């Protein structure tokens, strides 16, 4: 039987009585100033906590920062870095075998449903309520983007962690080309309006068309058309811009009517495929890695790309030819006429089977503090703290404004247990559509039916398939 033990049960065992808890809370509230990490960590001195995450700059930054924490607390932190899906698979196996290798895990938030519904996680509320552990100066409800935190680290109204990265996608474009007078004149003549950053999807397409010059090996855009999650992520931007969604729900942890085959979704998908004309020939073999390389090589005008990849294009001269030439903006407005972004992120979580949950919590809490968040962000992270974006060093980054705007407009995506399966279905169908083997409607209808089969009654088809 997999039932999740409530967090308080564990707590009682630790503190003995409910009275002890109440007392501790009172003390915590009244003596806020007295808390310090060294004392809080004293009981766990000598412990080793292990984590796992995707091999990316923010995790590398964490691995560099942890030394400070280790020195202060005497707790050793081990970090395992894997490729995206490897990191997920390792955790799935660890949790399902209940062996507790990892004391805390850093996982894509879409896995939350699987973890929570199968009872693998501990709600961090009990640590937050524990004055011995909780740093009173850490007020997540105040310092984090509330919506991002709720979507990335909460499930069905319970908190399970904090965002490790709050990722988003926005528009990348070559602002240097926009300033070129020849381009300006030509564009004006052809489209009847001034050349400028893409504000709407129509402009986005016009720009893509205008700058597509295969003879020179230069293309308007590049879509991430490989049969890979990247395709789905990219497509979501257009889906949202058209006012579509996968399901009609208020939050990711809910199940609701399936609207993935709505007219808006079909239109968005057709628009999306329309961009293929302005993409390099190999576009159906691209995922984030490849379009990134294209931009670095200066071979493409605009992309919709990840904020945490921006650094390597906009700042790092070792790998990018276009440093200083890049402009950034939120995704263009579509027929829905409202700013959209997507909630995506990796989140800190604490497995039930961890034997060092308290120490893990202390480390996570420490990592969420401003100094660490800033450091991590500057090293290629994507913090969920608005105050980090307000820092002057962050403001100096060319893409900070676009990232902030996108974060504020972020739309939740499913985190229910079946959500990775939903993704998989859509990736396959979208890929089939892009490859030309079926129409957008047929592909989305197939996806809708399969999603319904998977989710059952909680997800009726809003647009029935004959």
């Amino acid at each position, binding site marked *: 039987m997999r039932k999740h033990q409530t967090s308080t049960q564990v707590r009682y065992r630790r503190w003995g009585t409910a009275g002890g808890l109440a007392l501790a809370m009172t003390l915590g509230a009244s003596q806020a100033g007295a808390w310090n990490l060294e004392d809080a960590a004293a009981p766990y001195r000598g412990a080793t906590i292990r984590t796992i995450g*995707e*091999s990316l700059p923010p995790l590398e930054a964490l691995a560099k920062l942890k030394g400070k924490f280790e020195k202060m607390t005497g707790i050793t932190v081990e970090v395992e870095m*894997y*490729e995206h899906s490897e990191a997920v698979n390792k955790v799935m196996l660890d949790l399902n*075998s209940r*062996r507790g*290798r990892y004391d805390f895990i850093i996982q894509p938030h879409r896995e939350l449903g699987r973890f929570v519904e199968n009872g693998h996680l501990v709600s961090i509320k009990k640590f937050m309520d524990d004055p011995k552990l909780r740093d009173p100066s850490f007020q997540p409800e105040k310092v984090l983007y509330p919506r991002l935190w709720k979507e990335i680290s909460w499930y069905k109204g319970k908190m399970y962690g904090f965002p490790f990265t709050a990722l988003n996608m926005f528009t990348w474009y070559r602002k240097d080309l926009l300033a070129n007078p020849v381009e300006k004149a030509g564009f004006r003549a052809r489209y009847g309006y001034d050349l400028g950053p893409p504000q709407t999807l129509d402009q986005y397409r016009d720009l893509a068309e205008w700058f597509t010059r295969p003879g020179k090996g230069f293309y308007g855009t590049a879509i991430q058309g490989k049969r890979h999650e990247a395709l789905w992520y990219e497509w979501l931007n257009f889906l949202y811009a058209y006012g579509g969604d996968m399901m009609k729900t208020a939050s990711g942890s809910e199940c609701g009517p399936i609207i993935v085959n709505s007219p808006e979704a079909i239109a968005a998908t057709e628009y999306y495929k329309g961009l293929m004309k302005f993409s390099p020939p190999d576009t159906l073999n691209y995922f984030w*890695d490849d379009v990134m390389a294209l931009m670095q090589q200066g071979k493409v005008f605009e992309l919709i790309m990840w904020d945490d*990849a921006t650094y390597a294009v906009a700042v790092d001269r070792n790998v990018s030819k276009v440093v200083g030439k890049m402009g950034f903006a939120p995704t263009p407005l579509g027929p829905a006429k409202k700013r959209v972004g997507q909630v995506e992120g990796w989140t800190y979580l604490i497995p039930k089977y961890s034997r060092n949950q308290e120490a893990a919590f202390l480390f996570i809490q420490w990592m969420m503090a401003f100094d660490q968040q800033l450091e991590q962000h500057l090293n290629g992270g994507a913090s969920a703290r608005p105050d980090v974006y307000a820092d002057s060093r962050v403001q100096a980054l060319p893409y900070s404004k676009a990232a902030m705007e996108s974060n504020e407009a972020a739309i939740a995506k499913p985190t229910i247990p079946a959500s990775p399966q939903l993704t998989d279905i859509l990736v396959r169908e979208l890929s089939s559509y892009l490859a030309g083997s079926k129409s957008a409607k047929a592909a989305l209808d197939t996806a809708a039916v399969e999603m319904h089969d998977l989710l059952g009654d909680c997800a009726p088809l809003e647009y029935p398939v004959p």
Partner: protein
Amino acid sequence: MSRAWRAAMLAALLAVLVVALTPYVWIILTSFKSRLDALADHPVWLFTPTFAHYPKVFIDKQYLPLVWNSALVASSSTVLSLVVGAPAAYVFARNDFAGKEDLFFFFLTTRMAPPISVVVPMFLLFTAVGLTDRPAAVIIAHTSFNLSLVVWMMRGFFADIPREIDEAALMDGHGRLGAFARVLLPLAAPGLAATAILCFILSWNEFLYAFILVAFESRTLTVGIPGLVTPHGTLWGQVAAVAVVATLPIVIFTMAVQRHLVRGLTFGAVKG
């Protein structure tokens, strides 16, 4: 054979070699290219080499221990497969017993099991007995698929050694075990070498079992490769560096026992 015919054959062979080797040469070159050179839109054959990728991946990213892990796993599973498999192959070659062919076929079927489905149950069972995360887990897993190869190949080698050799060894004062270990095995050495290479290659390069069953600190080089494919770009230089280093031991090993490889595979060269 006419001169033209000979030249044509030589040309064909050369073409085959070029096709076989060019991708590898390219990856060697890539391991010394800067990212901009690696991603240039014209193939770059001449460039200023950078030696940054090797230290970056093996020192900074600490991939060096992975070479040792790979070596440990591959050599242990090879030795284990041979130790367990060669005696069985000998019996299959020498003895007749009811159901022998069926048992032999049973040995082979284990190779047909799809690893993608076997690996999760294997993980759970190994976890239950506390084997997971230890190199032993993946060594056992690799042994399971190499064993059938050993039994299959070594049976042929033993069958080609005349039976009288066993008997001569018995008459010379060995027990059957001694005859096998001291006389038959040395005679089958070329076959053992050939089999060992194939086992080693398979184990060294294997990904799935090695990834699922082994802990981060003892993961093998092959498991480390996908970690270099990041949303921030595939680190081609580092991937290439790892690929080059990963093939080195195998190439060296193969060269070392090259002489035996073909001879060993000739299923009959040991007759003396």
